[in-house]
């Protein structure tokens, strides 16, 4: 293939460029709009780049009520949900990938069915249960819901990762006198680390984005709201101040974009390899 001349590669390069543009344009448009002065946003002829860069919209967004607090809430809820899901899923995935036991097939079936759960329609029952257990208005409630939303997929992906680690390594360690858990912890776990990170991304994105539960289960304690709810109310307060809205969206998307880019290698190689198992 390396012998292809550049002429013959032209359609290929063109396709690649189109793909890159198609993927990036919305992201690009969000970021540049956020930096444009308002009069330029509302001009008949959109500019590809802001003629003058302004941080005004970011100032508006950050300066709005409670931005820092909601940011912290979101991080708190998201990270604890992801960590909880990882810990629980690791055990389950290990049992499924490495052990033979009665009920294994049924368990796998359960995990797959759980993946189809219609979460939007479960809001009312979950609201009722939450109310009856006096858990309304609390961030841990959100953490639990997000944990459950991400758990099935996490199990499926981790199982794929564990399966790619040769069990011989652990067996060797066991022969050397490690306990089974010790062998797993010292040998398999380090190999799994990238997989764990990649898996957590999925959970992170899901929990970071969640709006409906955050809006319905956090009622009175406005200090417990999360970023997606803030983003939606932000759009209300500022009407169609598209600049500020795009700045808010940028700030909201930033953590996810940054983490994905940082872990890009694991995402594209490891994650895909594991995820496919699902």
């Amino acid at each position, binding site marked *: 293939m390396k012998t292809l001349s550049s002429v013959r590669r032209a359609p290929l390069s063109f396709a690649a460029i189109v793909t890159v543009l198609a993927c990036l344009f919305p992201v690009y448009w969000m970021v540049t709009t956020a930096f444009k002065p308002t009069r330029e946003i509302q001009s008949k002829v959109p500019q590809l780049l802001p003629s003058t860069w302004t941080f005004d919209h970011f100032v508006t967004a950050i300066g709005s009520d409670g931005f820092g607090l909601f940011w912290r809430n979101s991080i708190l809820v998201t990270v*604890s949900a992801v960590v*909880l899901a990882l810990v629980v899923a690791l055990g389950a995935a290990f049992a499924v990938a490495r052990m033979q036991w009665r009920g294994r097939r049924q368990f796998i079936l359960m995990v797959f069915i759980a993946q189809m759960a219609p979460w939007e329609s479960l809001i009312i029952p979950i*609201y*009722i*249960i939450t*109310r*009856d*257990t*006096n*858990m*309304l*208005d*609390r*961030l*841990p*409630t959100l*953490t*639990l819901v997000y944990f459950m939303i991400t758990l099935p997929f996490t199990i499926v992906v981790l199982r794929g990762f564990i399966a790619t680690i040769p069990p011989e390594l652990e067996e060797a360690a066991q022969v050397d006198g490690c306990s089974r858990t010790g062998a797993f912890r010292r040998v398999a776990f380090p190999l799994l680390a990238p997989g764990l990170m990649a898996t957590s991304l999925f959970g992170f994105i899901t929990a970071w984005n969640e709006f409906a539960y955050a*809006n*319905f*289960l956090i*009622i*009175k*304690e*406005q200090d*417990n709201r999360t970023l997606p709810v803030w983003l*939606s*109310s932000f759009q*209300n*307060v500022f*009407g*169609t101040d598209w600049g500020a809205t795009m700045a808010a969206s940028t700030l909201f998307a930033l953590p996810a974009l940054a983490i994905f880019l940082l872990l890009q290698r694991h995402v594209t190689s490891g994650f895909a390899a594991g995820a496919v198992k699902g």
Partner: protein
Amino acid sequence: MRTRLIAGASALALAATLSACSSGNAEAGGTTTIDVWLMRDSVSEEFQAEFEKSFEAEHPDIDAKIQIQEWDGIGEKVVAALASNDPPDVIEIGNSQMSQYAASGGLLDVSDKVDDLGGEDWIAGLADPAVWDGKTYGVPYYAANRVVIYNTALFDAAGIDAESIDTRAKWIDATSTLNSGDVQGIYLPGQSWHALAGFIWDEGGAFATQDDGSWMGALDTPEAMAGMEFYSQLQALGHGPKDSDVASPPQTDIMAGGDVAQIISSPGAAGSVVAANPELEGKLGFFPIPGKTADKPGAVYVGGSELAIPAASDSSDAAYEFVKALTGEKWQRELASTMGYVPNKASLADAVADDPGAAAMTVGGTENGHSTPIAPGWAAVEAQNIIHDYMTAVLTGGDLAGEAQKASDEITRAMNQSD
């Protein structure tokens, strides 16, 4: 009362390990904390601060925490609050959404307090929706209705005297004259359904009519369609986007640009226009929306809010004190003069007499005020944007009769599905 299952203790235990940060009504040192939900734009920040200070001075045992809620998605929020064990103690509810909550059993019955609050004098558009089955569940808070806000400089330049516009025909003539060059005769977005409501009522139509207890959409009557036709005619005399409402983009921002001769809004919007463009200070005038003939102003939708106390509130006495203060004469006068709203009692109408905007508003509101159907099902019509969609469909070239028929059917369906 409530049949509630106690869900698994394990779920609790699981949650408890996650460090619960609970909160509730702190009642330290004999102070009762009440949570109050007011809607966006219901009070200004200064008004809120002033009221809170004075209220807490008079009631040292009550600590009122006021939270401002957004209108968007408020229905779900109020439902979630009313059904919870620890709801806010006072909630502001829009009058068009009031009856469903009054009917739900989630609000405290305040019938025995009506006399204490001077309820015989409440304006009807606010008092009626709060009554369900003979009992009162809400206290009228304020009302507002739409007027025409106009740019005096543009009117002068076109040689038009706003005072003389007292019929629809004259209004259309004047607006056509104004609508030339860069100037928009009127900025009327396609989905301003409260404005449409007035035009429909002027023709003698309605959104829905009641027959034997069940509601029927009525947009397909000749009267209602004539109202829509007038809306289209007026809407075409400017560049209002056909697919959005007054909030997106905010019509006050558009008017602040200086090229818009008129908008239809409650007079309070003039303040936002001036805030966005201080050069327009003193250059905005008001007149009531013209009717079909000169002897009667155009019909207007009387919007407004009630204050209600959730039945599950654990501090309903303190909550009542709050409601009583905010809906009492002193603060109603203050609210009317600072926010430009119509106060909750007809006898307080003099509070806004000096304000040209409020005066224009009072003409329409008192002489030809209407309300949307008082029925629990109406909220669903608003929530599903049925009228918004109908208006956009007609304005973008849809067949009037066909679209009206379709929208009427949808209104019928929406209003009868949730009783």
